[in-house]
């Protein structure tokens, strides 16, 4: 569980994140949604300590995320996995070496045990015959899977995904979403996902917080989001024709 209390972050005096408080629950896929530019990535980078917050506090299972407390931070880092918006695979390394990388850095296992573990997660994300390929030689969907595999190889307690299915076709996008959801439940991980994709919201939105211009204006579940009267949410949810039709049929029933 990750708790944030009134965190704010400004760039050049413009409030990008404005006093956001929220709880991201364990074993659930917690979604941060909002339009492009609403501050999703900035919020996630604040949670991870990649950006310093101006005020407020971040608690990982009750422990304060305090950049100056090196022992807490370095301990926590080993329990965090992250899937970046653009996958961020190391392009000088093969797929297998990308996945082995966190193991080589942080585990004391023997080489053969590390490889066994890496192959295990490769299988878990349904990848085949890519071990010795470089990231530039595989498709975007495969890159996402590799990024997920790398993020979970150390059995993290917290998983962060920044738009894990952007740039993927709808079918692959849903497969990736479901994969993240399964892993979250299977290993009881606190998972936080940024997305602006309504399909993801419906598929895996256990808990949703909705951002507009750096402010949290709503929170709830994927069931609640369809039936809220909030205008801004409706604008967001029903911006596509498909979801307008979904709403119409729902109302008819």
């Amino acid at each position, binding site marked *: 569980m990750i708790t944030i209390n009134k965190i704010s972050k400004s760039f050049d005096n413009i409030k990008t994140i404005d006093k956001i408080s929220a709880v991201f629950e364990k074993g659930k896929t917690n979604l941060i949604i909002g339009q492009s530019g609403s501050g999703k990535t900035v919020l996630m980078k604040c949670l991870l300590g990649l950006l310093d917050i101006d005020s407020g506090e971040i608690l990982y299972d009750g422990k304060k995320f305090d950049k100056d407390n090196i022992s807490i931070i370095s301990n926590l880092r080993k329990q965090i996995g992250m899937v970046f918006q*653009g996958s*961020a695979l190391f392009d000088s390394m093969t797929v297998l070496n990308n996945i082995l990388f966190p193991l080589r850095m942080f585990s004391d296992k023997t080489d053969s045990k590390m490889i066994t573990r890496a192959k295990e997660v490769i299988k878990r994300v349904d990848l085949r015959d890519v071990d010795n390929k470089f990231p530039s030689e595989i498709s975007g969907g495969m890159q996402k899977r590799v990024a997920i595999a790398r993020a979970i190889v150390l059995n993290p307690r917290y998983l962060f995904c920044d738009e894990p299915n952007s740039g993927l076709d709808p079918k692959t996008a849903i497969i990736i979403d479901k994969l993240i959801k399964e892993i979250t439940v299977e290993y009881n991980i606190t998972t936080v996902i940024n997305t602006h994709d309504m399909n993801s919201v419906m598929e895996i939105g256990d808990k949703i917080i909705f951002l507009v211009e750096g402010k949290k204006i709503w929170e709830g579940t994927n069931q609640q989001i369809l039936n809220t009267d909030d205008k801004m949410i409706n604008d967001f949810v029903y911006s596509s024709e498909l979801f307008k039709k979904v709403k119409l049929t729902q109302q008819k029933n």
Partner: protein
Amino acid sequence: MIKYTFTKFTKWSVLKKLIFQEIDDLIIGSIGIVAFMSFLIGGVVAIQTALAIDNPLLPGNLIGFATRQSVVLEFAPTLISIIMAGKVGSFITSSIGTMRVTEQIDALEVMGINSYNYLIFPKIISLLLYPFLITFAMFLGILGGYMASVYAGFSTSFDFIQGIQLDFKVFHIIYTYIKTMLFAFVLATIPSYHGFFMKGGALEVGKASNISFVWTSSVIIIINFIVTQLLLA
């Protein structure tokens, strides 16, 4: 940046591999161009000296002597370093810059890896071998001068070889290697800085490499001037 580079070290087994990789990329990968350039530059220096001192009263070993002095003191360390600012420097800036814009550096940081140490330290260490590259350049530069002047008939082999042994000052060698080590440090750090702190996308990576080259080569010229003032003047 330099301070962070030497704190919170990456696991040694990983670092060792990175260092060998950098030696391969930065040093071994530069041998070809360094050999080619220094051989030809040595030849040009010898021919121009020969043409400039076309006077029977001057001793025949002067060409060898002048070639050695110019190659060892200036052409090998300084000119080759400026060429390296283009080759190695832009390689460093663009590779680190690409890692920055594709969030690979963020990925390292999230994992709790000190990205400064991981990326910059191996480059600094591998450039400790830079003096070997410059020594190689000196050798080939003088060889180029020898071939050019002997085969074009400006000097006899005996005269040239006597010339390169003439009035040999150890201090000049010390001066050259002090310069070389400073250049090596500049070559590792300034391009890294420009890659590390760049913002934007792929286009900006190209721009950052350009700016990095301008800075690296300017700083090399300035250091060259200062060190020469301090040590030789």
